[in-house]
């Protein structure tokens, strides 16, 4: 997968590129917004910083969207709701606030790439994820351990569904909180921990939801690591 990285900060680019390479991606880097549209040939996903020295990232995003269907993930230090809305309205497929976790970034890159491909090909993502005897039905909102159905609250199910659909990649706390609760607040992280704790108890599989310290959670696939 080839990534176009539009990022003016050399240090971030220098840290990010080896990380992306390790996840099997190739990168092209632009330190300016100008010329981004011309560099789209062969690019699978664009990572676009909004705080660029020459043009506003939002304008770059609009220009890319006007020229191509390539997925764009906006990566910005501006994390307020208004900024996110503006970013998404200007044609971005996803919006990630700095600082982010590399695992989350990679997961999102895969997600937007897959979504584009699925849209252009046919309908249908895996509706049911089965891990270690735990069946998560994403459309029916049901969970079963073996033959035994488990009753989860809405939020508990949303947390599990998010982890399950990430296919073993790490989900950062920020991402889970933002996607399940819609906003973050002072006790959000601790609330998430509570939900994960009850999930582990209800599923009876303490190792299924793994804690990645300092980052977040992931679904422990059997045989992985």
């Amino acid at each position, binding site marked *: 997968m080839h990534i176009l990285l539009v990022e003016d900060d050399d*240090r971030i680019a220098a840290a990010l590129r080896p*990380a992306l390479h390790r996840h099997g991606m190739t990168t092209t880097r632009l330190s300016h917004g100008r010329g981004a549209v011309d560099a789209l040939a062969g690019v699978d996903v664009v990572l676009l910083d909004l705080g660029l020295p020459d043009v506003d990232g939002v304008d770059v995003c609009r220009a890319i969207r006007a020229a191509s269907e390539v997925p764009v993930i906006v990566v910005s*230090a501006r994390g307020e709701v208004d900024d996110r809305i503006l970013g998404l309205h200007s044609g971005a497929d996803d919006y990630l*606030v*700095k600082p982010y976790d590399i695992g989350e970034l990679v997961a999102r890159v895969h997600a937007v790439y897959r979504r584009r491909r699925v849209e252009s090909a046919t309908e249908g993502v895996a509706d049911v994820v089965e891990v270690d005897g735990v069946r998560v039905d994403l459309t029916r909102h049901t969970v079963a351990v073996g033959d035994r159905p488990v009753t989860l609250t809405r939020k508990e199910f949303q947390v599990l569904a998010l982890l399950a659909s990430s296919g073993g990649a790490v989900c950062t706390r920020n991402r889970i909180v933002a996607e399940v*609760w819609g906003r973050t*607040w*002072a*006790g959000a992280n601790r609330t998430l921990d509570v939900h994960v704790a009850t999930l582990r108890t209800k599923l009876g599989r303490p190792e299924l939801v793994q804690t990645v310290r300092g980052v977040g959670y992931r679904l422990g696939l059997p045989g992985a690591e």
Partner: protein
Amino acid sequence: MGARLLVIMVLVVGLLAAGLGVPLALASAAASQQDLFTNRLIDTIYYASSAERPLTEADTSQLEAALRRYDEIYGDAVLVLDTSGDAVVASRTPAPVLDENGRERVTLALARQPSKPYPLILPWDDRPLVLAEPVLADTEVRGVVVTISSTAAVRADELRTWSLVAVAALVALALGVLVALPVVRWILRPVRRLDEGTGRVAAAVLAGARPDPVSDNSGPPELRRLSASFDRMAEQVTQAYSAQRAFVADASHQLRNPLTALSLRLSNLHGRVDADAAEDHVAALEEAERLSTLLDGLLALARAERTVPLVPLAVDDGVDDRLEAWRPLAEHSGLELVRDGPRGLRATGPAGAVETVLDAVLDNAVKFTPAGGTVTVRTAVRGDHVEIAVRDTGPGLAPDELDRATDRFWRSPGQINTEGSGLGLAIAARTVELGGGQLLLELPSGGGLRVVARLPRA
């Protein structure tokens, strides 16, 4: 100050009127009295000269007839006394009796002293004007002619003049006030605008808006300059304040880039550090996360301090939403989360104020209240304010900590290592203040802490 200025103006005008009016009234009274005195003196001297022969010849019938006619026409009694002071001729019967002043004047006349002028006769002094002149025959005193004149006419005249002067003084005073009022208003206009301006500037600075200028180029030059200086100062304070806020916002944005690079570098080390160093690696990731949380807090604080439009808030929506969000954590910590008080209240404040305040306050309540405790969120109406009070059964604070608890980065001395930035209550307080309300910390009887957010009613 306006009233005082007016009093001073009126006092000046009053003194001026009195200073001019009183001498004028006195001079006028003295002049008319002098006229009366001179007239009567001439009459008295005339009768003294014409009484010489009748007294010498002891034939007083003609003189008496003349005196009676005079008395009838002018109403002033005339007496002719001999040298021993007994009445020889009188213009009326019975002969008027002289008072002490009269007898004294007769004595003086017998000693050939000229008539003493009278001091100013005041309107309420109804004693008559008595004049005595000696009757001389070849430089020898043969008797005394005494005229006794009523001063009623003079006194009435005096009263009339005095009232005229008093009325004129009052008119002058009234005119003075009429002239002084606009002058006082003109002088005080900049002062009043300054007074109103300070309140507006304080509100504007707090809201981060540009304050309206106070000076409107009216009033005395000194005050005009003061107004202009005040405007400059307000402008500078506003700029400094918004610069400070912008700095916090910019700094927390700018810090995100190096922090992102740091997090990425740390992630890149994942799985490549020695087992011995793995603990440090994870701790470093956690520190980066903590720093990120702190930046979020700083941004939230900068947001809470910047100007925002005030909107009507449905208190119930905010309270229910936050209680639902906090309930899992509270129950997990063994706490009971209770909602109390009337529903359907509406307040005014920045959008999301209820949620912001409750998040900060509930965070502390849930963190510091031991298992088995209760956290009560109670809504109430107090006057024209809506109160949202959160009361916990935790350890509370020391009384001297209540004021400082809403300071930025303040943390209770025993809780330095508890998770959190120390910005929660500061953000809550600024948010409520932006809405024109107040965040109060109280120590209720029965222990624990009570945090009350007071917002204006919508």
